[in-house]
């Protein structure tokens, strides 16, 4: 890498035009990607790679392919590369292609156990995912925690931790330390940015677009800030880029510079990233120069080297050697680009973007090195901090501290008061202020705390508490698709299907395009037996996204409700095909197999679901039910107990555990479990009925009758209650009462099997009675 850098550096001197061409191409590629013109970008990038073969350009090409959902291309391009960013992109491609071993090897090479994970928080997150899907829970948890510590805003990492059941209290994770971490990152970033700005400033004198430069600055910085804020989490090594959010981590010095080369290089990075909400407020404190200066000693050189697009950044005396020359052009160019990017309003922008390149080939020269470096740092989706590597040896002066986000405003380590003042005035709109930064970070973290707590509690099935946590959210956040879905899920786990229906209904109204949680919604409707609503939901989901597993799960539930288990199974298998890591689809497949009496396939499906998500208690329940049917009671008890450990609040699981215990002749424990189930959820009649069953088999008829009487109040039209009472009276030889209850049971239209059972039980009594009664009763009972 370094070598190539050096060579490029030299070639820079040799052929300025080439460098310029490379820079232009790279720039163009980035801007194409930004506009989502992937085919165009890929084409140009291939030309770029052919003309200037280098690993950085290859990374750009790979990232274009990744953007275009062609991970396999990226895989082949980056195979064998060693640069950190390359390894990260390669690992990402492997992950997308399900080649988890290779992904792991790339991120964490076996022969270099102490090497650092590339790309900081994002790298740790990806590695965590790899470990999770290869069943190494502990390592996964470790890496997710690392990712979170590097980037406290990495919500996805926290989500994964919750799913694995290893999340700490949201208050601890998104707390004070996190706020300070964010603040530091911003300040660092700002300082680096300052430095780069200063540097550019030095050389922007020659720029013909000074005006634009000036105009651009605040916007640039804002842009920068917005982009950088996202990365605030990163550590030295990498910008924390959540694998799931397209955030571009700024990479140290070069990044800063790239930031300035708005259109393509680094700016693209940043601009491609969704500007995080933080940036609006989070601006570093100008007055904090000292602190920043303190920790940016390696930066001091950078300061001098980096050119601020703003002329106001004095630093005249900080002219650099060759790098200075390089940057001189980047300054205006970048600034113009940034201007173009940052605000469409500025008139100069339009012209500047277009005109800059071709107008000033010499400038390009200077720029090119940086631009290309910047270019290299662009990975539209998942940027890493490779700029460090790229530039390390090539540019002495750019002490690009890797991934520190550039925080606009703030500290100019070189401590140029004039510059600072200017900057401050320029940035007055952006109001840098350490304490403010802290408070803003704190606000965001406060929000995240509520979300995190709610999610964590719902993952460990403390659903009431989760609902409380979510209710503390401000209304504008509560009424969003994600939150409402989570609320719906919490009600679903509490077996309050009506409330769940309501919450999910609201969620659909708020974000009708979102499929998150819709598989659970379809199950809710299935439980409520609302076939119209369910089929409507399924149709809508399919028409929204035919390739989402949730849509097919809903469709499958629809068929299952109509008892067409074959078609339901087909639909669930389609969902599995679309996303083999979707645990719930596997569980539903399992349920359908069991309904079709194909126990072996059912067991396989349940086990697959458990392999994906070992805390998916529904699969454990499914396995328990299968074993119960197959009369393998020990297995059944074991699985129900596991499910109980994961979800200790589910009265249904508890009652089945009790049933299994009873089948194992551990009736005392069984009764205990039933008591717990009853007290866990008073509305659930199942444990009471099971308790009565157990008591009957233990011949405690009195108590059983008591329970059944109570149950009768709750569900007066349940035929099985009367049938069981009839059985009890029969065993107690109270035939009239038995007859009465059997009659009542038959009245309530039980299933054919039960009718047969009852009639068979009743027949001997009738035979004993007198002839008249006999015939009357036989007639009544239709025997």
């Amino acid at each position, binding site marked *: 890498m370094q070598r190539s850098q050096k060579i490029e550096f030299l070639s820079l001197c040799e052929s300025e035009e080439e460098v310029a061409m490379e820079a232009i191409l790279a720039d163009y590629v980035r801007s194409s990607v930004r506009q989502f013109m992937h085919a165009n970008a890929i084409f140009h990038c291939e030309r770029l790679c052919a003309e200037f073969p280098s690993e950085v350009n290859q990374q750009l090409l790979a990232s274009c392919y990744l953007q275009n959902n062609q991970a396999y291309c990226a895989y082949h391009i980056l195979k064998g590369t060693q640069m950190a960013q390359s390894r990260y992109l390669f690992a990402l491609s492997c992950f997308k292609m399900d080649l988890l071993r290779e992904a792991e090897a790339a991120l964490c090479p076996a022969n270099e156990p102490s090497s650092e994970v590339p790309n900081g928080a994002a790298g740790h997150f990806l590695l965590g995912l790899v470990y999770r899907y290869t069943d190494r829970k502990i390592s996964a948890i470790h890496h997710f925690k690392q990712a979170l510590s590097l980037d406290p805003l990495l919500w996805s990492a926290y989500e994964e931790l919750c799913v694995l059941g290893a999340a700490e209290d949201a208050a601890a994770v998104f707390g004070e330390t996190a706020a300070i971490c964010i603040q530091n990152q911003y300040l660092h970033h700002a300082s680096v940015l300052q430095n780069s700005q200063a540097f550019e400033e030095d050389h922007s004198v020659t720029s013909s677009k000074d005006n634009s430069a000036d105009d651009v600055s605040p916007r640039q910085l804002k842009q920068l800030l917005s982009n950088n804020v996202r990365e605030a989490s990163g550590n030295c090594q990498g910008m924390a880029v959540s694998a799931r959010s397209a955030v571009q981590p700024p990479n140290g010095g070069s990044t800063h510079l790239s930031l300035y080369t708005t259109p393509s290089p680094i700016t693209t990075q940043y601009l491609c990233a969704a500007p995080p909400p933080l940036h609006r407020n989070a601006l570093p404190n100008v007055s904090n120069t000292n602190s920043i200066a303190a920790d940016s000693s390696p930066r001091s050189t950078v300061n001098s080297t980096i050119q601020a697009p703003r002329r106001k950044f004095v630093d005249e005396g900080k002219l650099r050697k060759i790098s200075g020359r390089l940057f001189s052009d980047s300054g205006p160019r970048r600034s113009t680009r940034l201007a173009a990017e940052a605000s469409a309003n500025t008139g100069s922008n339009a012209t500047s973007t277009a005109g800059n390149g071709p107008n000033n080939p010499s400038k390009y020269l200077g720029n090119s090195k940086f631009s290309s470096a910047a270019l290299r740092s662009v990975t539209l989706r998942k940027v890493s901090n490779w700029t460090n590597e790229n530039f390390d040896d090539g540019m002495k002066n750019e002490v690009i501290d890797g991934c520190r986000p550039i925080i606009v405003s703030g500290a100019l380590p070189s401590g140029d008061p004039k510059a600072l003042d200017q900057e401050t005035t320029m940035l007055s709109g952006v109001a840098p202020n350490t304490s403010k930064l802290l408070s803003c970070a704190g606000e965001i973290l406060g929000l995240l705390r509520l979300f995190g707590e709610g999610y964590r509690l719902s993952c460990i099935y403390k659903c009431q508490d989760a609902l409380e946590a979510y209710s503390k959210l401000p209304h504008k956040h509560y009424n969003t698709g994600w939150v409402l879905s989570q609320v719906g899920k919490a009600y679903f786990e509490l077996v309050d299907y009506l409330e769940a229906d309501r919450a999910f209904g609201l969620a659909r109204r708020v974000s009708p395009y979102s499929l998150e949680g819709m598989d659970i919604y379809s199950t809710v409707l299935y439980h409520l037996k609302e076939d119209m609503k369910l089929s409507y939901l399924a149709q809508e989901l399919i028409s929204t996204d035919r390739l989402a597993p949730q849509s097919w799960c809903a469709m499958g539930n629809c068929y299952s409700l109509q008892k067409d288990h074959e078609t339901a199974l087909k639909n669930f298998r389609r969902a599995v095909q679309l996303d083999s890591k979707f645990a719930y689809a596997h569980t539903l497949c399992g349920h359908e197999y069991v309904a079709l009496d194909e126990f072996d396939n059912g067991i396989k499906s349940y086990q697959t679901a458990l392999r994906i998500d070992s805390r998916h208690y*529904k699969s454990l329940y499914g396995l328990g039910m299968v074993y119960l049917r197959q009369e393998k009671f020990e297995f059944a008890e074991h699985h129900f107990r596991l499910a109980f450990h994961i979800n200790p609040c*589910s009265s249904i699981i508890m009652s089945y555990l009790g049933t299994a215990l009873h089948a194992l002749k551990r009736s005392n424990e069984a009764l205990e479990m039933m008591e717990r189930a009853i007290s866990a959820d008073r509305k659930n*009649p*199942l444990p009471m009925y099971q308790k009565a069953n157990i008591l009957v088999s233990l011949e405690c008829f009195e108590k059983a009758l008591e329970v059944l009487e109570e149950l009768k109040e709750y569900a007066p039209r349940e035929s099985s209650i009367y049938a069981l009472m009839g059985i009890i009276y029969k065993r107690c030889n109270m035939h009239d009462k038995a007859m009465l209850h059997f009659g009542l049971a038959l009245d309530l239209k039980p*299933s054919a099997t039960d009718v047969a059972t009852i009639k068979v039980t009743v027949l001997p009594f009738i035979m004993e009675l007198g002839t008249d009664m006999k015939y009357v009763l036989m007639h009544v009972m239709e025997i």
Partner: protein
Amino acid sequence: MATESSEGEEEGKLTGGSPVLSVDEDLREMGKKAAWSVSSCKPGNGVSSLRDDNLETYWQSDGAQPHLMNVQFQKKVKLQLVALYIDFKLDESYTPSKVSIRAGDGFHNLKEIRSVELVKPTGWVYVSLSGNDPRDTFVSTFMLQIAVLSNHLNGRDTHVRQIKVYGPRPNLIPHQLFQFTSTEFNTYAFVR
């Protein structure tokens, strides 16, 4: 062994037939797990037409009467209902007239459990396998044989367009004597 009910030789006349198949919810089709065979068939109108859910295709026998449709299960199953789709209007002299249903462990010990006479059927015809005794609601058997003894208008060969065999749904909650009927119970009965 098939339950031997005293009313094994009972005769019944069935007329008409519903164009649409409608069966009780608590019955489920058992034919998917069975091996189906026929005594003879014309090429192109074989046993698969009996089970293809297509009422246009039919099985046509090609031999001497009685024509037999055999359903064999791997384990003893409880059966309650046989549904046949036959149409006099389409098949005229190929329409079965006398049908006998036998059950047993295998070909060697089949015994007749039901016998019906069809009079100009036009659609789905349901033949219940239950006896009068509540203990005979279901027939517990390894094999079922539906024999066409004679056709309308004394036709030699017979057409049967579709056939389905039904048995009771097993109790979804194992180890429980009775199934739940009310919504309150059913809501809480399972985790999905």
